[in-house]
């Protein structure tokens, strides 16, 4: 069975990049254009891992983490945060919110896959 | 059948040989035992604070190093007579669902080593309590020692009181 990824990002470019890399690597790829849509889609997609941007309209990345972790939807799903802010406090903030890990933008295929591997074990 | 103890303890069981240590004690003149790893400490009885509206097998609460822990009368719990607790009795502190709970017993006897293969199923008797609370029996020095199913005796503390 393919590992299901739900990517949440308001940038079409980033979504395209993720789609290209992930589909080629054999992941099942789903995407949402903002945090609200991502959270709404979550139960239907039931992904194995969520990748989310931080700065988004409607609901930001922290909101996504909070809702996914909070309301008992699935408190355990790995959540990777996409961030250009490489600063430690951004990571700390994401982690305090319950993020599993982070991917620093811009990312290359190898580091994206490596991050996914560490949180899902996916041998893609 | 393998005993439940075996199944639950998983990893530890596999590593440390076959024998498990149990602590035996008497309640209303009968011999019972608990696995040594289930017991946190054993204390001498001292008067407890009564919990209003509590059932008769809940003696009250005790201060265990700053924590409030409930104390159960095992004898009353097993449907035997209520214990008139005195200084000679002991409180066996166990943890149920991560919370410490005290069990009043008459006295503690000894630590015995038990081969899980020697544990016999509880023979069917006409008592629901017995069947639920005793998960097996063993013969030790020609007496019957009852292995207590702690989870059944003290289910979730909340449920006990409701």
């Amino acid at each position: 069975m393919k590992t299901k990824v739900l990517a949440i990002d308001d940038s079409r470019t980033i979504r395209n990049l993720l789609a290209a890399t992930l589909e080629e690597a054999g992941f099942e790829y789903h995407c949402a254009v903002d945090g609200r849509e991502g959270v709404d889609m979550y139960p239907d997609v039931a992904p194995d891992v969520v990748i989310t941007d931080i700065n988004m309209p409607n609901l930001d990345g922290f909101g996504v983490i909070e809702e996914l972790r909070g309301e008992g939807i699935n408190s355990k799903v790995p959540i990777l945060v996409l961030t250009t802010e490489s600063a430690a406090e951004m990571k700390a903030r994401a982690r305090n919110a319950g993020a599993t890990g982070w991917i620093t933008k811009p990312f290359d295929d190898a580091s994206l896959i490596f991050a996914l591997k560490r949180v899902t074990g996916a041998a893609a | 059948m393998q005993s439940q103890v075996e199944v639950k303890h998983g990893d530890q069981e596999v590593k440390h040989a076959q024998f498990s240590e149990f602590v035996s004690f008497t309640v209303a003149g009968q011999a019972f035992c608990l696995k040594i790893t289930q017991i946190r400490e054993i204390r001498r009885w001292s008067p407890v604070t009564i919990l209003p509206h509590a059932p008769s097998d809940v003696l009250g609460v005790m201060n265990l190093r700053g924590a409030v822990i409930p104390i159960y009368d095992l004898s009353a719990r097993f449907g035997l007579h209520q214990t008139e607790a005195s200084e000679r009795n002991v409180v066996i502190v166990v943890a149920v669902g991560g919370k410490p709970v005290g069990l009043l017993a008459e006295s503690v006897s000894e630590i015995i080593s038990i081969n899980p293969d020697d544990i016999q199923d509880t023979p069917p008797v006409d008592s629901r309590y017995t069947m639920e609370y005793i998960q097996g029996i063993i013969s030790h020095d020609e007496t019957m020692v009852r292995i207590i199913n702690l989870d059944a005796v003290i289910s979730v503390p909340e449920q006990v009181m409701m």
Partner: protein
Amino acid sequence: MSGSIQDTFFEECEELLEATDEGLTAIEGGNHDPEVVNAVFRAVHSIKGGAGAFGLDELVAFAHRFETVFDEVRANRLELEQKLVQLLLRSSDHLCDLVATARDGGETDEAHHNMLIAALDEYIPEEEEDLTFEPMGLGGGGFAPAAIDLPTAPTEETYRIRFHPMKEMYGTGNEPFFLFQALKELGDLEIKLDDTELPGFDAIDVAESYLAWDLVLTTTEPRDKVEAVFEFVEGLCELSIEGDGDAEADAAALAALEAAFGAAPSVEDGEAAPAPFEQPAPAQAPEAESAPAAAPVADAAPAPKADTAKSEQRGGPKPTLRVELERVDRLINAVGELIINHSMLAQQIANLDVADMRDVETELEGFKNLARDIQEGVMSIRAQPVKPLFQRMARIVREASSATGKTCKLVTEGENTEVDKTVIERLSDPLTHILRNAVDHGIEKPEDRESGGKNKVGEIRLSASHRSGSVCIEIKDDGAGVNRPRVKQIAIDKGLIPENAELTDSEIDNLLFLPGFSTAKEVSNLSGRGVGMDVVKNAVTGLGGRINITSTPGKGSTFTIILPLTLAVMDGMVVSVADQTMVVPITSIVETMRGSDDMINNLGADGTLLSIRGNFVPICDVAGALGLEKKDDQPPGVYLLVETETGQRSALAVDDIHDQRQVVIKSLDGVCGEIAGVAAATILGDGKIAMILDPESIIAASPSAAAFDTERRMNNAVAS
């Protein structure tokens, strides 16, 4: 990288540039709404993110400056004055040019470019300036480790890794198993589980982390690749990674020390000193420095170190320390005991036969003040601003509004008011309910509001403030107010009050809190979820607080919740009841008095009234209400006059009162279920546990008080 993706990037850029332009035009026109600012920020941020992916460094660098200035605006550190807006507009144009250049090739006007960068930099706070955007990032995972050609022939290295997750790690969705899988891909991996910390099955606390692993990894990969595997869990586990080379290097360092200082601790078997299991990963940094030979491959400084250095350098937010809540609670308990200890000590000293106590008393007073200081300090660790809670409530109001077809806005005040963490957690449900209720029943439909001369948009004001040692949360709506005739009729229909009851306005409003009361004629899909305001009230009283409603017809209603600042300590009166020592919260006691027979009057079969200065107050026998047997038949000696929420007074009869003191509250949650009449427990100075009573529920359980209550309502006696 596929060309089509780059094409979509440029297409998206067009849209984003449009959005930027649109936003800036609005800003120029005076619209400084945070959402407009945010939209521009996001657009520029997206351009930067995409450009980074395609290595368009010039575009990235410029977009980053632009974005940083906007971030300052967003954070209200920068005002959108005319000069800045003009600069931003010109920058937006330049961004357009840069995108075009990136797409179609050509030259940028370098002078113009540098001028704009310099102008933007002036708005960027100094400490931010060196934060030039680094396309490579610091993601310890390494930007392209897979592509790196090792400068030297790979040598095989064996790492001994001790990995002990803290329980917090499991809350972030990290799984040890997956980490091991990732490690396995680097080389030969031996995994050994250490479960020695694992208690018996029955003692397992599911939230605790008992397991640790000892791993032995043999790999030709550089050390930073091994460390990168643990990047996400750094700080969430105790981790030590020791390479074979480390031991040698450590030994060499030790030898050097030995040479320098003569005597040195002996190192057994040539092994390194014990691994620093107790310290989280960053502790490796000094080790790495003192042992340059540890990593044979010239690797960059490990990511965590760089991050720390960076955040320190930039000042950033105030440094914080993450501590397990349990540790704080242990400290709070200990301070509580200290305060109890003080009062015991003071009492015993007072009992001594000493002629001149002044010096001792002064010192004791100092002791007390210090203890209180420590207590306040420790309590403040648990305190958190209500802001996140209030933010969640905004969403509740939005959802409720759209479900009911009403338009409401939530205005919040005092978001930075700090309240005990537990209080915040347990306030969420009651607040949600009150707010849904306010939208559903309080705020009128938009057309009704307009015809009533009100703003179409209903306003709900949620505020928090500190008031003399307690926290006040207020929920105020500008809706229709309580429909009193209807509320009263419902209460009569449901048999909650007698038909001929005459109640004051305030009494009618408070009927809403009665169990089994629900005003919605048909259960609406919003607030009518089978719970009434009584549940809200229970939640608030469960926190040791009070809730109150005031309402003006046509103008709206206000719910006021008063909560104690902390759940950890309270002032109590120590009493004895049926040979047991108990504590009654001081806040509920109006006065205490020694009783005499002539003050007691019988009423009916089992009612007794206490006469106090001409007023009759029902007596509630505490022992009886708690189901305790009294050892002797002596009449109770002392009465505690208490007042309930509704202003009704009762006299609690107890055997004796001792003293008044601060007690540490110990929850009975998990010890036993809810006990009628008991709020919690405490530990007294002698180590014994005492029950903390809940006067309200004792009165509710007392036949005398209940009988009198009905009688009072029937006779329309005026509440005192």
